[in-house]
Structures are given as structure tokens and as C-alpha cells.
């Protein structure tokens, strides 16, 4: 029997505002527990929330970039449940009137395109963090994260497999980083997702019973959790039982999902409009201002790289795939007229290093600025391409400054032709038998002389100059 998988994702994107969604508390990551917490974040008696408009502006950018309906009037609701890291006993979220309505996003799976529809994207506050392992027999609560603005992006159940789910998550991540509304840092929890998975027979109209896997924060885990879950559900149904609707947790160590709570145990969240907050109205002026200042998106960059920088489509696609890569390209291009050179380095050596380390460009030690300097030094002939390659490898490992490496190791290319001529003459004088053979018709020996000069100069000679000089000397 053939099974069809139906997947929907709820992605929580932490918006990169300076202060929290309803307070002036800082959103900075990594501070001492409970130091980025003000009266409102603590939910003290008598405090009131005030909505942070910046979060709305960022949400609207996402909406515009996904061709979504934008609700210029949106409102907040309370979602009531008890948990120690939820200070008020309710979360303020947008249930009835979300800021962003129906939209869509294009994904690319192994070269073929698919459109995933987005149901809605709404603003809500994050909870704090419960810390179970630091205190013997006690749980600590860190409210630093409480009140941090999240944009929850809810997809339609239109994703068919784990690969597509990862591609969708990547597309959203690419978009929010280009829009400058989220730093995309998954390790710090800036993006997390809940995955709804169900299976059904291909012919069935109705969706199967779904399980929701909570809080996954890596591409790898999304893929593994979904694949595990699909197999689990197929196994259950094929053995004649039925899948129960429940919330599950993915355990990355054991690579399995396990039940957190069933539908019966689920909270009744008792949603109702938050009486402390009036609906937030975004004026036409504010809206147009956001629209007119929308950052350049990946598609637009790709087109511009082809038309203005003369890149091949494949090159343009790779470079515009991540904001960091695009930034690197643009910064390096400002240092040279040779955009092809920049593209070759990014698509070639840099991508090769990324692949071999299996990391994203954001995780590498190569900074945009350092890369631009490397390109500049190649362009102005300070270093040869070969030297550049070894410098790149060194920077890749250490993150050291390109100019410092060149200086410390004396890697500056020898530009003075008289020095090169001297070295070339020495090589010729020391290898008279090879000179004889070359002149006798063994043209291939020319490479031997080039190699010897390069060796003598430790690669610092400009290969073109060496060629010219050797040709002159040997043919005279």
C-alpha cells in the first residue's frame, strides 16, 4: 500500500527588535539569568503591556515579502495556561486578528520549484526558560527570554516529505535574514519549529490524525524527526491500530519522537481578547514607509547579479542563497572591478570548504571584511592566486586577518621583474641539460622551468611575469 505524508510547519521566528514585545526589557542573548527582565516581563501585579511597534514593522516586512494580506488593524488575545516560566499565567498572542494573513513562499527541492502557502503569521511573546539540571531537586526559572517578540509563521498542510519541510524551513530562514527581521541563529533558538505530521492513503480525501512534534531547532533534526514519525505512523496503521492526536517531543540523542501529552491532557487555552491592549492600527504612512524600504530579496539579488555583475545563473543562485554570502559578494565587489573573480572564489574555493566542513557560511570563521581584503590583494597583485588559496585555508582555520598573514609570512608577490629575471637566469644556468632538451623540441619542459622559479620564490612570483621572462630567456 502506498502512503502519502501531509506536513504543516509552525515556525517561530524571534524578531530582532532591541526591546521586548510589551516592555522595554532587552532582548540580548546570553546574559546572566533574570537580568534582562523588567516589571512587565515578571508579570508583577498591576503592570500593563504596551505593544512594540517595531515588531509590527518587522512582521509586515515578512508579509510583504510573501505576498500576504496585511491586516493594518490587528489585535491581541490571551492564551491561558499555567507553567512556571510563563509569568502571567497567559501568553499574549494574536488569535483572532493576526498582523499577516494568507501568503506564500517558493521552495526549491532538488532543482524543482514548489509553492507552499502560508496560512497566517502572527505576533506573540515568548515564554521564559525552565532550568532543570542546575539545582538539585529544584527547577530554576530564567525570564530573560520572557516577552521576546516572536513571529509565528503557520504553513498550510502542503508539505509532502521531510526534504520539502527542510527546504521550506530554509526558504523561510533565508527570507527572514534577508529582510533583517531575524538573525536566523538556530543554535541560539532564534528560529524553532513545531511540525505537524499525518499520513493517509493516496486516494483518501480526508487527512489522517496528526501528531505535533514540538520545538525542533535544526535542519537535521527536522528531517530525522519527520522521517521517524512517518515510519512510526505507518507501522501503527499497518498493524491495524490508529494514530492518536498528541504532542510529541523529538529526542535527538535517541533519534526518536515520544509522547508529551495526548489530546485529552491538552490545555483548554480559554482564548479571549486581551483587555489590556487596544487593537494596533498601522497607518497608511507607516505601511507605505515599510513597503518602500523593503530590503532587496534573494530573487531580486539573483537577477541583479546576472544583469549587472555578469554572473552565470548558477553562480548568482548560490551567492544569493544566503544573506551572508550575498553580503560577502557585494563587499568584495566594492574592492575590485572583477566581479567574476569574486564569484569564482565564492562558488569555487569557499563553497568547497563549506561542503567539506558541512557548515553554513554563517558558521565559518571567514568574515565578509576579511574575504574582501583577500580579493583586493589578489586584484592588486599583492598575492598570487595560489598564495591566496593557502591564505584562505589558513583564515578558514584561524579567522586571522588576511593582511597580517601576508605580512607575517612574507607572502607579498614579487613584482620586480629584474629580481625574477635574476632567479630565472640562475635556474637556467643550473639546468643546462634541460635547456638543451627544451631547445631540441621538448616543449613540455617549459613547465619544469616555471615550477623551479615558483619553488625558488616560494610561490610569490607572478606566474604571468615568470612565463614572459622564461620565454624570453629560453628563446633567445
Amino acid at each position, binding site marked *: 500500500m502506498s502512503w502519502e505524508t501531509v506536513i504543516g510547519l509552525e515556525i517561530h521566528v524571534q524578531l530582532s527588535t532591541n526591546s521586548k514585545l510589551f516592555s522595554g526589557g532587552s532582548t540580548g542573548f546570553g546574559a546572566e539569568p533574570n537580568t534582562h527582565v523588567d*516589571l512587565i516581563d*515578571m*508579570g*508583577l*501585579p*498591576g*503592570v*500593563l*503591556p*504596551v*505593544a512594540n511597534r517595531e515588531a509590527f514593522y518587522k512582521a509586515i516586512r515578512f508579509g510583504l515579502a510573501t505576498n500576504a494580506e496585511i491586516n493594518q488593524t490587528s489585535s491581541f488575545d*490571551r492564551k*491561558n495556561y*499555567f507553567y*512556571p516560566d510563563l*509569568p*502571567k*499565567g*497567559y501568553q499574549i498572542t494574536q488569535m483572532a486578528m493576526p498582523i499577516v494573513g494568507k501568503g506564500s513562499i517558493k521552495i526549491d527541492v532538488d532543482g524543482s520549484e514548489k509553492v507552499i502557502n502560508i496560512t497566517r503569521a502572527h505576533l506573540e511573546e515568548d515564554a521564559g526558560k525552565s532550568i532543570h539540571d542546575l539545582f538539585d531537586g529544584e*527547577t530554576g*526559572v530564567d525570564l530573560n527570554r520572557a516577552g521576546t517578540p516572536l513571529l509565528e509563521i503557520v504553513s498550510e498542510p502542503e508539505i509532502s516529505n521531510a526534504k520539502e519541510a527542510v527546504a521550506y524551513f530554509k526558504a523561510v530562514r533565508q527570507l527572514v535574514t534577508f529582510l533583517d527581521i531575524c538573525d536566523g541563529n538556530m543554535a541560539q533558538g532564534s528560529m524553532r519549529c513545531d511540525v505537524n505530521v499525518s499520513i493517509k492513503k493516496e486516494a483518501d480525501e480526508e487527512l489522517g490524525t496528526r501528531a505535533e512534534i514540538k520545538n525542533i531547532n535544526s535542519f537535521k533534526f527536522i528531517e530525522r524527526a519527520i522521517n521517524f514519525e512517518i515510519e512510526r505512523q505507518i507501522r501503527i496503521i499497518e498493524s491495524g491500530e490508529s494514530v492518536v492526536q498528541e504532542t510529541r517531543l523529538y529526542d535527538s540523542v535517541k533519534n526518536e519522537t515520544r509522547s508529551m501529552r495526548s489530546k485529552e491532557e491538552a490545555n*483548554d487555552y*480559554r*482564548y*479571549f481578547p486581551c*483587555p*489590556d*491592549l*487596544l487593537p494596533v492600527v498601522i497607518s497608511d504612512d507607516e505601511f507605505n514607509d515599510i513597503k518602500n524600504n523593503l530590503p532587496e530579496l534573494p530573487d531580486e539579488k539573483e537577477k541583479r547579479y546576472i544583469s549587472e555583475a555578469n554572473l552565470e545563473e548558477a553562480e548568482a543562485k548560490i551567492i544569493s542563497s544566503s544573506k551572508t554570502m550575498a553580503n560577502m559578494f557585494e563587499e568584495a565587489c566594492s574592492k575590485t572591478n572583477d566581479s567574476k573573480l569574486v564569484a569564482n572564489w565564492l562558488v569555487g574555493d569557499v563553497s568547497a570548504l563549506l561542503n567539506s566542513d558541512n557548515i553554513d557560511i554563517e558558521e565559518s570563521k571567514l568574515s565578509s571584511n576579511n574575504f574582501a581584503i583577500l580579493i583586493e590583494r589578489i586584484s592588486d597583485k599583492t598575492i598570487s592566486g595560489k598564495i591566496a588559496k593557502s591564505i584562505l585555508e589558513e583564515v578558514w582555520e584561524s579567522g586571522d586577518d588576511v593582511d597580517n598573514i601576508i605580512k607575517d609570512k612574507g607572502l607579498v608577490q614579487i613584482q620586480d621583474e629584474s629580481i625574477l629575471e635574476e632567479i630565472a637566469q640562475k635556474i637556467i644556468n643550473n639546468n643546462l641539460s634541460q635547456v638543451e632538451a627544451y631547445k631540441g623540441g621538448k616543449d613540455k619542459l617549459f613547465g619544469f622551468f616555471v615550477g623551479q622559479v615558483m619553488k625558488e620564490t616560494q610561490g610569490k612570483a607572478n606566474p604571468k611575469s615568470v612565463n614572459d621572462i622564461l620565454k624570453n630567456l629560453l628563446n633567445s
Partner: protein
Amino acid sequence: MSIQYKSIKNLTSMLQNKEISHKELINETFTLIESKMDLNAFITLNKDAAIEKATLLDSKKNGSSLAGIPIAQKDLFCTKDLRTTCGSNMLSSFIPPYSATVISNLENAGCISVGKTNMDEFAMGSSNETSFYGNVENPWGKNLVPGGSSGGSASAVSSGIVPAATGTDTGGSIRQPASLCGITGLKPTYGRISRWGMIAFASSLDQAGPMARTAEDCAILLNEMCSHDNKDTTSLNEHIPDFTKDIDQPIKGMKIGIVKEFDLSKLDSEVVKVFEESKKHYESLGAEFIEISLPNISLSVPTYYVVAPAECSSNLSRFDGVKFGKRCDDPKNLEDLYIRTRSEGFGDEVKRRILIGSYVLSAGFYDAYYKKAQQVRRLIKNDFDEAFLKVDVLMSPTTRGPAFEAGSKGSDPIQMYLEDLFTIPANLAGLPALSIPNGFVDNKPIGLQLIGNFLEESKLLQFAHNFQKTTDFHLKTPSGENI
């Protein structure tokens, strides 16, 4: 010279004329408070800080408008470094790190907070009997309730201990105790006074207001209490007039509406008699009476008892024993911590309303109760809008009768809920309303309610002041003397 029963106006001139120093006034106030401890009007006193502030004021040349005026603060407002219990065991050890905007406003104007007044637990009650800190006595009679929930504030003003107190009014909690204690109390338009620092009961209904002997003093206090506060998004960004400015203007030719649907025939005949006499009195001042129909007003009490508990069930969720307030001893696990903390920390009335509120918001019932109640609320508001096209103010008794004895409403909460029959509609519609003393039934004071249009507190105060200039109900003391 005794300062008992002195108005804000009196005290201000005594201070300015140096008939009394700030410190003497505050010391006198505490002497009075201590002599009236049996009223149980206060939960926490602020003696040291109050005397310190008074001493400081004595050393200054020019004080602000209300410099040195002693004021009692309802224990629902957060006061920095001063215990704030909201009448609950849950907050018996809660010392806020900040002050409510209204407290800051009054203190910045020079008022000296002498203590925190007793109240029904989390403002849920109409007799002050739900306070964890015991009943408050009405100065007008042993074992009489002062009304609620601002019962301590009403009792403190009524007994002449302080000239002024703050209250809050969610369904009548300023006006009903004002009526039962023979003082003046005003609930402003929703949003006039910031809710920042008020411990929320029902956020869409809660409004702070002044309680004092006279309408004029209420106007003086209101001038300082109102502000547009960007910490409260429901705070109104509207012009704040000088509320004392027009109170002396005559009301001749102005129109008073009598609500047809308020069926007075069910009230005690003595109560009706007092009300009819007040009508006559206003007629003598030149006002005209028009009968007004508010067709949906009979739905006010049921609507209120859906909306208010719903909001309270959510607002009180933060009292979970995790961060502040009471925590039960030796919790076995998280669930045990929640259950026992909340079982021990809340009283019966609070629990009852949390249960009602959780029920009306629960899946499958939301549309039938909460959503429906909000729709009815809109209809009630529309009725008022229509009415104020025809009249300047609406008039009714504030309460169904005078103060009753503690325990007399028995165990049926509905009987207590009906206490707020006349006061609830103004909260649902967000309108300003006040209560002034207008007579006596069985030697117990009773109040007259005036409801005004949106933002028209000045007009209400004008009607009230005109009444008080020509009557002396507000000047009677419980001992039967005239002030």
C-alpha cells in the same frame, strides 16, 4: 483644634495659614486612626514615611497643590516599598518595587499616603466581608457593613479620619460604599485614570476614582489623579479640564433622565421617598426631568457576571506561587504547588469567580457566554449614547437600600451580586458616575447616583456640588452632629 471631618479645602487653608504644621496634621491623623482601630479600615499603616514627608514639607517654603493632605490608599494600588495585599492572603507579604501612576500623581501633588485601606479580596465583593483581613465596620453602626469593595476607604473618610481616599470601581466599588457610608465617590470615565499599578480585577471595567466628603473635594482630587499614561494603552489621550472650574455654575434648565427600566417599586418605600425628595430638590434648582428608556439595561448584571469573572480568571493566573506572593509549604510537585498555593491563598468569593470565568471562556462555551456578553455590552452602551442625546445626566438611587448587617445576605452570592444593580451599567458602558449622600433610611445614610456622558465628569460634579450647596446630608456625622 480637631482635624476630624475637615475637608481638603479646610485643611489646605489651615496649613497655609499656619494654624497647623504638616507634622502636626499627620500626627493628629495617626492619633485618629489609632483611636478608630475597631473600624478595621486599614490593613497596613505608613506612619514613619508619612511623618518623614510631613517634616520635609514643614521645611519647605512652597508646597504643591495638595501639599500635606493626608490620604488613605485602597490596598489595591501598588505602593513602592509599602506592602500591598489587595485584601488577599495571597499577597500578605507582597511589597511592590514600584508605585501605581495614580499613587505617584497624588504623592507628587503633595498628598501624604497614611496607609492602605481594607477591601474585599481582589475587589470582589460588595460588603468588605471577603477581605482576608477581616470585616470593616461602617462608622454609622456597629456590625453594619461599609459596602465594598472600597469599604476601608469609605469607612476612613466617613469616620472623618482622613479627608480623602482612593477607591476603585469595577461594578460599583466606589459608589456603593460611598452610598452606604454617607460620603461622595466618583468613578470617572474608563481610561481617565491610568490603570498602571492597579492590581487588575476585570481590566476592561476597572477604574480608579476619588472618595471624599464633598463633590468639590472629589474634583480637587480628580485634577491630580487623571493623566494620560503611556504605560497604559487604554489610558485616554484626552484633554483633562480643571474639574473644579464649573462646579458652581447653576444647573437651571439642564435635563436629568430617569431610567424607566430601573423598577423602584421593588425597593423599600423609605428608599423611594428619599429618591423622590432629591428629584424635587433638583427641580427646585431648575432641572428638568425626562423619562428615558434603556431597553437592554436589565441585562447588565448577568452581562457583568460573565465579563468580570472571565477577565479575573485570567488576571489572577499570575498568582501561582512561583514568583511572588504566597507559596504553599513543601510542595510535592508542580501541580501540588499550584493547587495548594491557590487553594490556601484565595478566599471563596475569588475562587467562585475564577471558576465562573474559566467556565465561560472554555472551549465550546465562549461564544454562548463571553462573546454574547460583549455583544450585549455594546447594546447597553448604545442605549446610553441614545439617552445622552436627550439628557445631561441620568439619575437613580445608588443602592437598593442603606447599609446592611454583616452576614445578613446569607450564603446566596446572587443576593450580594444584585447589590450592584444600579451601578454596574456605567462600568459596562465605560461612563462616569458618582454617588452623593441624599438622605437617611433608619438613621443610615443612603446615596444618589448620577451617571454622565463620556468624559463629562465636570458636569456630574456640577450637579453634585449644586446639590451639596443646598443640602446638608453630606455634613452629618454618625454621632448625629453637623460638621
